């Protein structure tokens, strides 16, 4: 009879947690770990903010003001969310710089570099779509300027801009798409990239151990 302990995935996770990770190593003292911690903070604070946020043209700005003014500790949660987002951009960029300077992007780790680069793009996308959600005068101007820039890219720019705009003009559909990208598409993409990155790390480590 199979029990929970016999499950392959659980056994693999248990074995990974019990495996010593090299003398003197401090994996938690790295930008990579800080990225993971910030993603967790962003997920939790974002979930709390999404309780009150209304992604509608006439209600988005008011719902954000309601969080800031009337919800207990709402201003603090929104502040933590904003600062964590800025911190994540800094940590993701710093992690890539560190990987570059230490030369850990060559050979088996090339895939990890590409994933890190894609993660930085996803993080920038998350931060930017987050700027649009309050849908105040500033956000509307920013959305318009960003869509004009996207439109100018040859070949795939116009269809991409049209898909992001969701119509002839910046409006309700643009806000709905920014909201969907910020709360569904990009967070899941970030989670997937994180899992792939961990798999790459474990895989390249296993290969290095086989060689020694």
């Amino acid at each position, binding site marked *: 009879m199979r029990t929970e302990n016999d499950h392959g995935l659980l056994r693999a996770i248990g074995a*990974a*947690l*019990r*495996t*010593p*990770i*090299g*003398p*003197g190593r*401090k*994996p*938690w*003292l790295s930008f990579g*770990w*800080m990225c993971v*911690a910030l993603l*967790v*903070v962003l997920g939790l604070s974002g979930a709390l903010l999404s309780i009150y946020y209304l992604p509608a*043209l*006439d209600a988005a*700005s008011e719902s*954000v*003001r309601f969080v*800031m003014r009337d919800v207990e500790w709402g*201003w603090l949660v929104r*502040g*933590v969310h*904003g*600062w*964590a987002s*800025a911190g994540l951009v800094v940590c993701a960029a710093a992690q890539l*710089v560190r990987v*570059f*300077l230490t*030369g850990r*992007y*060559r050979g088996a*780790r*090339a895939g990890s*570099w*590409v994933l890190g*680069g*894609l993660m930085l*793009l996803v993080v*920038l996308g998350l931060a*930017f779509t987050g700027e649009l959600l*309050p849908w*105040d*005068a*500033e956000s509307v*101007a*920013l959305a*318009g*300027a960003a869509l004009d*820039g*996207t439109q*100018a*890219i*040859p070949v795939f*720019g116009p269809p991409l801009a049209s898909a992001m705009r969701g119509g002839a003009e910046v409006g309700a559909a643009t806000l709905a798409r920014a909201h969907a990208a910020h709360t569904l598409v990009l967070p899941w993409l970030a989670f997937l990239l994180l899992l792939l990155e961990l798999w790459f790390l474990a895989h390249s480590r296993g290969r290095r151990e086989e060689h020694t």
Partner: protein
Amino acid sequence: MIVLLSRGASPEEVEAVLARMRALGIPGASLEVGSLRLIHVTRGRARRARWLLSEPTVEAIVPTSGPRVRRDGRRFYPFHTLCATALGLLLLGLLVLLAGFFPPGVTSAPAAGEMAPAPEWPWYLAPMRGVLALAPGPAWVGPSLLVALGALFLAFPLLDRTRGDGVRARAPALAAGILVMIMVLALGIAGGSA
């Protein structure tokens, strides 16, 4: 040495283990992480902690020093998990402080027919703004340049043909990379003031 107690161990059971440890001459400090109870052996002959395995509440004993740890390093769980959690909490504290001292603002929604102001671009897009501002010629040059630079960045491991790990062996790639970083900083400054 960390003594791992079974999940949901009651305070009385923890106290019983601590009393046994004191009797063995290895005093420890109790830690609680969620439903998890741990005891960190703070001083004394840690080898004596193996006698604790006879206690029904004690699940495992994880060495944090000694020959095996010096040779193989520490396990992720529980040692590094505790450190990572502590650092995460510190980070959260820093974020709360920043949010408390510098709270975000929000302005009102634009009225119908109101002209949108010139957008204030976020700081992290300043290098991209710099490329767009400095790109010559028609409007498509800047965005196309951005896409090409992004593709070059992702393909960097394929372009780097250097061998060896030393600074001298990697000098061409390092020089190119550092040049790119300086360019990104300069573009950021240019984009911020554009």
